[in-house]
C-alpha cells in the first residue's frame, strides 16, 4: 500500500499511460550517487529474475545510469518538488521513467537536444552518435554532454518527453524510455 498521495497519483497516471503491469523499482525523493549504484544493482537482480537477455540488462543499466545521473546533477531541491525514477514492465516492453525539476535554461538545452535526436532517421543515428561522441569535450567537472544522446542511442530512439511550467522559471521534465521488446532482446 502506497500512502503518499503524490506517488500514488503518479503511479496511477503511469499505469494508465504506459500500461505498466509490474513495477520493478520506484524511487521518489532524494537522489545521490550511492542511491544510483544501489538502484542499478537492484534493477539488474530483478531483470535477471525476469529472465531478460544479458544485452538488454546491460542496455538498461547504461540508460538507468544516465537518467539517474541527470536527476542527481540537475535536481532543483529548493522548488520542494521531488524527483522520481521508475522501472516497470508490461506485456511487451520494459519502461524507464524519470521526472525532475529543471531550470528554464536547462529546459531550452534539453528540449533542443532531444528534438534533434528523435528526428534523426534510425539508419543514420549510429553515425550521428559516433560523430557527436568524437566531437564532445570532457569538462573539468566531468561532463561531456553525452547523457541524453546515450539514452536515445541505447534505446534505439524510443524516447518521449514532456515539459511543463511549474513555477517561477522552473519546469517539470518527464522522460519516458522504452528499452526493448521483452521477448526479442536487442
Amino acid at each position: 500500500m502506497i500512502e503518499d498521495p503524490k506517488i500514488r497519483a503518479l503511479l496511477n497516471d503511469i499505469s494508465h499511460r504506459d500500461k505498466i503491469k509490474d513495477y520493478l523499482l520506484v524511487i521518489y525523493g532524494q537522489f545521490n550517487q550511492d542511491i544510483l549504484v544501489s538502484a542499478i544493482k537492484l534493477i539488474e537482480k530483478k531483470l535477471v529474475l525476469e529472465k531478460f537477455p544479458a544485452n538488454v540488462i546491460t542496455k538498461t543499466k547504461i540508460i538507468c545510469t544516465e537518467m539517474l545521473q541527470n536527476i542527481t546533477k540537475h535536481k532543483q531541491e529548493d522548488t520542494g518538488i521531488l524527483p522520481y525514477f521508475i522501472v516497470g514492465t508490461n506485456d511487451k516492453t520494459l519502461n524507464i521513467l524519470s521526472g525532475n525539476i529543471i531550470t528554464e535554461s536547462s529546459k531550452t538545452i534539453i528540449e533542443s537536444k532531444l528534438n534533434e535526436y528523435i528526428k534523426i532517421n534510425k539508419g543514420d543515428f549510429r553515425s550521428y552518435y559516433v560523430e557527436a561522441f568524437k566531437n564532445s569535450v570532457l569538462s573539468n567537472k566531468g561532463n561531456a554532454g553525452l547523457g541524453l544522446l546515450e539514452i536515445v542511442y541505447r534505446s534505439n530512439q524510443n524516447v518521449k518527453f514532456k515539459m511543463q511550467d511549474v513555477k517561477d522559471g522552473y519546469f517539470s521534465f518527464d522522460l519516458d524510455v522504452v528499452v526493448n521488446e521483452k521477448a526479442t532482446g536487442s
Partner: protein
Amino acid sequence: MKNLIIESTIGTPKVEFDIKAGSLKITGICTPENPKQFFEPIMSTLNDFQGTGKPLTIEIFLEYFNSGSSKALLNLFLETAKTANETNIHWLSEDEELKDAGIILEEISGLKFKYIDI
C-alpha cells in the same frame, strides 16, 4: 616511476597499472560523478610510461559505465595513439551491448582492439 593501483569502490573500477609488465587493467563498474578527475592519475601514469618506449597492453573489462567515462576512455586511447609505442587493447565483454561500446571506441580512436567474449 611507480605502479598505480586504485581499488574499486561502489561506482568506480579497480585500476592496475603495472609499469614493469607494461600492463593497464581497468575492471568493474565505471560511473564516477567526475570521470575526468577519476582518470587523471591513469593519464598521468600513462604519460610517464610513454617515455619508456615499452609496449603497453590495456585490458578493459567493465560491467557498465557512464557516458563521461566512455569519453575518458576514448581520451586514454587517443593518448596512447600519439606515440609510436606498441599498444594492445583487449576489450573484454559479457554481451553484445558492451562489445558495441568497444567497437565505437575502436572506430573513433583508429586503434585496433582485440575482443574477448567472457
